[in-house]
Every structure is written in structure tokens, then in C-alpha cells.
């Protein structure tokens, strides 16, 4: 099965990012800080396994004028699959749910997830009620379709089928959660995001 280098896929996303707030979770904390060009708008959701999608739903409902991307993992999403239904029911028009799908638990060393390789996250999102959902396995196709993906009705899911890299350290320079939390709250307190 074809898979992308995760970091390269994230670089394609980063190039098209404008002022969306990006919520990292689990193993993508090693890659997104390398791809990002706006680290001041990035936040690492750590401390409650699988709950980044729910956390981002709260942000999206509280600030419908801002855009939010949640960088979820497939193992993390499997821990909180019900959140697909909860999110779809609230219909946040400003939430893009990205699944960094390597079919393993990279944070613990790369063990396969249950149903590894067989789970159709795009299908789960559609059937839960997401307004749109996409899956990509190669960089060229992703690059050609990203404008359409980013313009699609939301809540939207974007599944990135990527290679597993096993356990890696958190990217250097990433703000610790407590510090980042304070920063994010202050940022969101601004009346207009620009």
C-alpha cells in the first residue's frame, strides 16, 4: 500500500496555511514543528489521550470566526471514535480534522493499531456526518487536490496515509503545554484574528 513521508505531506499543508490555529497531538508533535511557518499559532494538546479532536471542537464552537486544524493520529482517534459523531452533530464550519494515519502507535515505538491497515477513517467520518472527507496516499495527488480539500464544506476530514517512523522525540523548541495554553488563551482573547 502506498504511503507518504508524513513530514513532506505536512509541508504541503503548511504552505497553504493562512491564519488557522493548528492543534498537534501525539506523534505529529515531532513533525509539524518542522513544517510550520507560524509556530505562534500552533498548540500541542497533551495529557489526555485521544482528546485533541474534542478539544478542538470546543475551540471551534467558541470562536466560529477563526479556523482550526486538528492534527490527530489514527491511534489517538481510535481512542475517541465517538468524537466523530459529536463533532458532526455540532457541524462546526471552521474545523478541519487531519488524521496522520500510519497504522501504528508511533509514540510507543510503532506497534500496530487494532485493525491496522483496514480501518477506513474517511468512510467513518462520512457516515458520522462530516460534510466532506478525503484520503491521500501520495504526495503528488495530495498537492494537486489540496486547494479543493481546503475549500470543501466542513467539518471536513483529511486522512494522510503515511509511513511509520517509530518513537521520536518531541521537536525541539516546542512550547510546553502550560506555557502554550496561556499564549493560546491570550491570542484567542483578541477580538479579530489576522
Amino acid at each position, binding site marked *: 500500500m502506498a504511503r507518504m513521508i508524513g513530514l513532506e505531506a505536512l509541508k504541503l499543508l503548511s504552505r497553504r496555511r493562512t491564519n488557522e490555529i493548528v492543534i498537534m497531538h501525539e506523534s505529529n508533535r515531532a513533525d509539524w514543528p518542522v513544517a510550520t511557518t507560524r509556530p505562534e499559532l500552533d498548540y500541542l494538546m*497533551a*495529557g*489526555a*489521550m485521544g*482528546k*485533541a479532536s*474534542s*478539544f*478542538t*471542537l*470546543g*475551540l*471551534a*464552537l*467558541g*470562536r466560529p470566526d477563526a479556523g482550526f486544524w486538528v492534527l490527530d493520529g489514527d491511534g489517538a482517534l481510535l481512542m*475517541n471514535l*465517538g*468524537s466523530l*459523531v*459529536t463533532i458532526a*452533530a*455540532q457541524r462546526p464550519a471552521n474545523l478541519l480534522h487531519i488524521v496522520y494515519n500510519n497504522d501504528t502507535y508511533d509514540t510507543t515505538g510503532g506497534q500496530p493499531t487494532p485493525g491496522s491497515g483496514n480501518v477506513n477513517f474517511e468512510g467513518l467520518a462520512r457516515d458520522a456526518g462530516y460534510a466532506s472527507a478525503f484520503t491521500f496516499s501520495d504526495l503528488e495527488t495530495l498537492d494537486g487536490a489540496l486547494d479543493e480539500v481546503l475549500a470543501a464544506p466542513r467539518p471536513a476530514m483529511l486522512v494522510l496515509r503515511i509511513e511509520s517512523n517509530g518513537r521520536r522525540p518531541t521537536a525541539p523548541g516546542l512550547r510546553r*503545554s*502550560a506555557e502554550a*495554553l496561556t499564549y*493560546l*488563551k491570550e491570542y*484567542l*482573547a483578541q477580538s479579530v484574528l489576522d
Partner: protein
Amino acid sequence: MVTETDTLKAESIIEQFRQCGFTHVVNLPDTESKFMYDAIAADSSIHLIPVCREGEAMAIAAGLFLTGKRPVVQIQNTGFFESGDSIRGICLEMKLPLVMIIGYRGYAGPNQEPRDSAARFLEPMLNTWDIPYYLVTSDANCHLISEANARAVNEGRTVAVLIGKEFE
């Protein structure tokens, strides 16, 4: 015999929510709260966010808090146990000033043996996690919700309100 002062009306709780300025109720209906659910759903000033599993609720509330909203979480004690990692990693680690309304399933009254383990372990668990709590059993003491909210805000911590009686 049930007297007037023994009742706990859903409207009394909703009035407390209004006084606290709660904007969102993140909720999973439980056996104690059918009337409560209907009352919230009928009040357009408070947004209802139903969740599929209780552990989602604390994370959604955290996101809402960061945007300046005032959510309250409403679950049953069985859901409190299910939510362990969210309560630890979000409510306690983030020092979330959250009020958790928890249906006290199995509560049999003061100095009475709990009817089940969901009731037996609830207060010991709250004490272990150093989460303050208040017990509401009637309209007469539902003002404790406002007290709990003031404490959550002033002390920057999550506070629980245990609902020891079914709503009417």
C-alpha cells in the same frame, strides 16, 4: 412522604446555570436527568452539546474556556469513572475552572449504605484527586451550584456538584 422542600426541580438547576453565566452544557444524559435534559434543550440561551462518551466533555469544555465561554459539564458518576484520563490530564493539569455536575447514582441519603459501587467509590475518588465537591439534594440547597462555580473561578480548579436526587 415527600414534602415541598424535598423536591429538586430541573428549573431550579437551570436558574442556577443562568446565575453562573454558563453558556454551554456539555452533557451525556443519565438516569437522574431526563427532566434536566428537556429543560436545557428548551432554553435557547444555553447551548447544549451532547457527547457520545463522557471523557469528550472535559476536552470540549477546555476548548470553550480558552475562547472565553463558560461551559459546565453534566454527567453521571459512572461517566466520571470512565473519564479518568480527561479529568487528570485536562481538569487537573490545566487547572480548569470547571463545574462538573455529577448524577450520584446509587446515593441512598446521609449515613445510608450506598446502593451500588458507583456511589460507594465516588466521594473517595473525588477526595483522592483533591476535587472539592458539594451535595445537592433539593431546591433548598441547589444554590450550592453557584458556590461551586465561585470556588472554581476563584481558586482556579475543577469543582464537582453531586446531584443526590432525581429531578422533577
